[in-house]
């Protein structure tokens, strides 16, 4: 295998693995938020804001993986 193959494999693994954790985490967070809204519809506004905030923090991890994937992708000659 040449170096290019390793770069391509690394890029695919970087984005693939980086979406794995945040995907599960965001699913859990969103599920719990909906549960909370269903129990207490009057708290919808607060819950939504907190949900967006926490999703943004999880999203950042995935984005780091995406950037690493782009970086590796740019190295393929």
């Amino acid at each position, binding site marked *: 295998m040449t170096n290019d193959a390793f770069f391509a494999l690394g890029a695919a693994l970087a984005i693939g693995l980086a979406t794995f954790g945040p995907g599960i985490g965001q699913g859990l967070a969103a599920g719990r938020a909906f549960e909370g809204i269903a129990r207490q519809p009057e708290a919808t506004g607060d819950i939504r804001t907190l949900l*967006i905030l926490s999703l943004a923090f999880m999203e*950042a991890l995935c984005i780091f993986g995406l950037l690493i994937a782009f970086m590796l992708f740019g190295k393929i000659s």
Partner: protein
Amino acid sequence: MDGMIPVVASSEGGAIFKLFGLEISSITTTTWVIMLVLTMACFFFSRRLKAIPETKVQLIAELTVDTLLGFLGSIMGSKEKARYYFPMVGSFFFIILASNYSGLLPGAGHLPGFQAPTSAISYTAALALVVFFSTHYHGFRTHGIHYLKHFIEPHPLMLPLTLMEELIKPLSLSLRLYGNIYGEETLVASIFAMVPLFVPLPFMLLGVFFGFIQALVFTLLTCTYLASATAEAH
């Protein structure tokens, strides 16, 4: 660090002309246009303001600003506090929203001198640095020298961790915005290269949604950082 260079270079497109020895890239010219549009919008919406709104223009402007202010107020604790920081934080929201949406206009990223500014890391890093310095400035302004105490708050041994946290905040703030917009632009471009008709449309709609969410998230995080830096000591 070597691998960082092609990404940054390719995402910024290089200089298109020089002005007084400074290299002017596509994102700079797009930012000028956005500045012009936002300034003109400000003049248009703030013309002939009355205590009791008479025109629809003033109603729209008041509704927009009041909704955003109320939303930020619920984050920062009180509407007065949000109103104090609103000139900076609100400007962030509108300029990031305009920058994100400029990438959805036809020709963005292909025509020279036209590229979404938020799809370049230098632009988002500049915004995040403004947040970083203003957060600590307002922290010192509120608490004086006692502001330094919050770095050793739970325990002095935590100092390296809290310092690292402060430095990671602007890093993640800039990378989140840049990665989202650059990733979305690249996605639409590569889908467009595969199937030019109709198929990219849902992804561009997703781009409209994410552009708004990312602008909101940047503003929200700025607000939480400001709120935690200026919070009353317990």
